[in-house]
């Protein structure tokens, strides 16, 4: 039912955008942005359900909460960066969109820095004459 509604609203928005774009490209862009935000807000409850399920899984298995938090943050960064990049790309500014994507990638990689540093420290510590760690 939900998906039917969403597809219906999406088709309607697409037709509207096609009609408006000829006259007022600015409003077409705003309409697309609004549609994206509306879909996102409508699905927040479902996303919350998935996140709760994942948290429960992590709790039961005794996995550290740091892992889960980081993973969820990575997903959030990926989604937000992708969303922003697509909106900007729709407006015809590919270069800005690629910058947004680049920022998202960098932020995801920054999350990996502590893990990499711990692994490297361990490996250096394992080596007999390694680095004095």
């Amino acid at each position, binding site marked *: 039912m939900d998906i039917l509604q969403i597809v219906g609203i999406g088709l309607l928005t697409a037709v509207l955008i096609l009609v408006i774009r000829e006259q007022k490209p600015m409003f077409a862009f705003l309409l697309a942005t609004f549609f994206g935000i509306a879909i996102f807000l409508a699905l927040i409850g479902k996303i919350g359900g998935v996140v709760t399920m994942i948290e429960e899984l992590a709790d039961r298995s005794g996995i550290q909460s740091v892992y889960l938090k980081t993973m969820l943050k990575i997903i959030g960064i990926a989604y937000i960066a992708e969303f922003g990049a697509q909106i900007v790309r729709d407006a015809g500014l590919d270069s800005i969109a690629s910058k947004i994507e680049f920022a998202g990638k960098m932020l995801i990689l920054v999350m990996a820095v502590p893990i990499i540093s*711990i692994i490297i420290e361990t490996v250096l510590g394992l080596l007999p004459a390694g680095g004095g760690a």
Partner: protein
Amino acid sequence: MEALGGWLRQVVAAVLLAALIDLLLPNRTMQRYVRLVAGLFILLTLAAPLLTWIQGDMDAKLAAGIEWAEREPGMEEDEGELAWIMAEAKRIGDGRNDQAAELAATGLEAQIRSAVEQEEGVTVDGVDVQAAWSADGTLEVGAVTVRLKPSGRAERTADASDAPIAAVDPVEPVTVDIDVGEARGPDGPAVRADAEVDGEPDAVDEAAAARAGRIAALIAGRFGIATARIDVVPAGRQGG
């Protein structure tokens, strides 16, 4: 064996989590990066026993590292730092204000004590001044409590202070004979005793109240403190 089971469970959960996150990703541009991080997490989970053995408290280190990684890109650190500095400044300022209030209260206590002792000739047991900072930043005296020493009347104390201190005789042994038979008797003696006691405290109370009023007026006049805030505790009420 239990530790092995727990470790295995963690590994399975980490792999499941990574698969789920891979599934949740919006498109392929981010996929490589997210896979790298997820793979590192799985590696960390696999090597967790080894890492704990070598590094000690790995979890705390990892949590600190991730916190650092999150704070680095944005302005959060600056805001956190600023909030910390503001909180610290408020704490230090409050401490200084408290110290100033305490100092002022101590000075006022000493002045009130000397003024009351000079003017009224009574011995003051203690003066409590409660000073607090008002909302507009001025120091206000909340309540003044003057406790008088149970050394008797003013005149006697004044005389005693002039006379040289006489040598004190050692305390004689006191023998108290209690006749149980009389105490058990009718109400007569007890009533008489009450009547004797009743007469004197009234006079004492009146004198004490008058003296308390004088002391309160003196403090109010000299230090500008409202009389309602001054409480003079006479010698009789010390214990209670």
